[in-house]
């Protein structure tokens, strides 16, 4: 069966969609039900838990960015709500 998403490391707070996931769909991760808040395109990320503004976004068990605003569980996670933590250092 085709998987809906993949989580790259245990510590991650985001998952990557392996197919388009629709708004209102419910997915299960670590025995937890997560409601998807808006359409997640193939290859894009959604939050596995709440990430508050200023907190790190974690994928591959590493920091891939900082939340620009509060991100709810099941939200689409992309450039609109995440900025590079790396580039911040070179500003």
């Amino acid at each position, binding site marked *: *069966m085709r998987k809906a998403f993949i989580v790259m490391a245990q510590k991650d707070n985001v998952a990557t969609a392996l197919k388009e996931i629709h708004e209102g769909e419910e997915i299960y991760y670590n025995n937890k039900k997560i409601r998807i808040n808006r359409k997640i395109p193939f*290859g894009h*990320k959604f939050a596995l838990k709440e990430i508050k503004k200023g907190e790190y976004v974690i994928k591959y068990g590493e920091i*891939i960015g900082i939340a620009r605003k509060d991100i709810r569980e099941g939200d689409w996670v992309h450039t609109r709500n995440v*900025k*590079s933590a*790396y*580039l911040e250092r070179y500003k």
Partner: protein
Amino acid sequence: MVEEFMGYLRDDGSVGIRNKIVILPSVVCSSVVAQRISEKVEGSVALTHPFGCGHIGPDFEYMARTLAGLAMNPNVYGVLIIGLGCENLTSNILAKRIKNSKKPLEFFDIQDIKGGTIAAIEKGIKIARKMRNEANELKKEPFDFSHLILGLECGGSDSISGITANPVVGIVSDKIVELGGTVILPEFTEWIGTEHLLMKRAINEEIANQIKETIDSFIESTKKLGLDFRGAQPTPGNIKGGLTTIEEKSLGTIAKAGTAPIQGIIQYSEKPKGKGLWLMVEPGLDVESMTGLAAAGAQLIIMTTGRGTPTGNPVCPVIKICGNPKTCDWMRCNIDIDASEIITKDKSLEDLAQILWEKVKNVCNGKLTQSEILGHNELAIWRLPGFGLDISKLLNI
């Protein structure tokens, strides 16, 4: 159980997984002669290239090191160098370098024999055929994977390469390091955004600082050209595909190199100075990169691809692994490992790593890769060794 493969022992102690005769033109002017010779001798390959004359300073060194390095690759039994006679990278200079490998080696210049192209081809065929016969006498012996140098590469990546093919290769890369082997990760432009993580993996502070200096000096040099390497990533296409930040993109790329400690940084076409994982300074063009890996002594390359690419290498088998279902379908003849089942079926990264590991062993034992079957012998040499120097000075601006 000890993991082993059947290879060819060379006189310098290295081990080949192929047994090729190399016909090496020292300069573009002798490339057609070299090509004709190789066409007449089965199991030989002409390393044709458009260079060999007018090189100065670091450019000369990079060119000589790369051409000699390719000829010295453990997969090569013997070498015939064809010079013209008036070039500045002469057959003699290359021969002096290649002698260190103790391989059977012959060389001559077209201007030194009576009869021009035709006589040169005839002379070359005789020499190459004799070498081929000697090469055929060599018996394979079992070796453990501490004798293997694996090169890592990615080309035509897409937004899912970083969550499919690349981490699968990372698992196999770690396994080779664990078995005492050597792995080289090139393409430093794709480390940008993960310096701090690569530095943490360095075996000591000195190596960590080298990683930082390598990337910082490149970024400073390109800034003078008005380029912003950090700010331009990820590209609009990457963002559309789901990649959000430069560090996310680069993490997906360096996933190929697993989690092993980093032993050090080597320059383009330079041999690793020990076992384990090494970084190679190389800017990230697939074919240039694979040429540099083979010239550094890699007997095998694993290349991940998303959108698909057919390229190979003249002395080194290339295993292609792809996570994109459409590419695996459309370019099936170019792909060795279909990793798209991570997406289309419920296969795990570990499942695919097991399949890739079996493929690595088979290819080391002589099984041809798709790029070999299709005759992909692409060769390109990085000609901007200004890296590490001031690029703006080199370009005189």
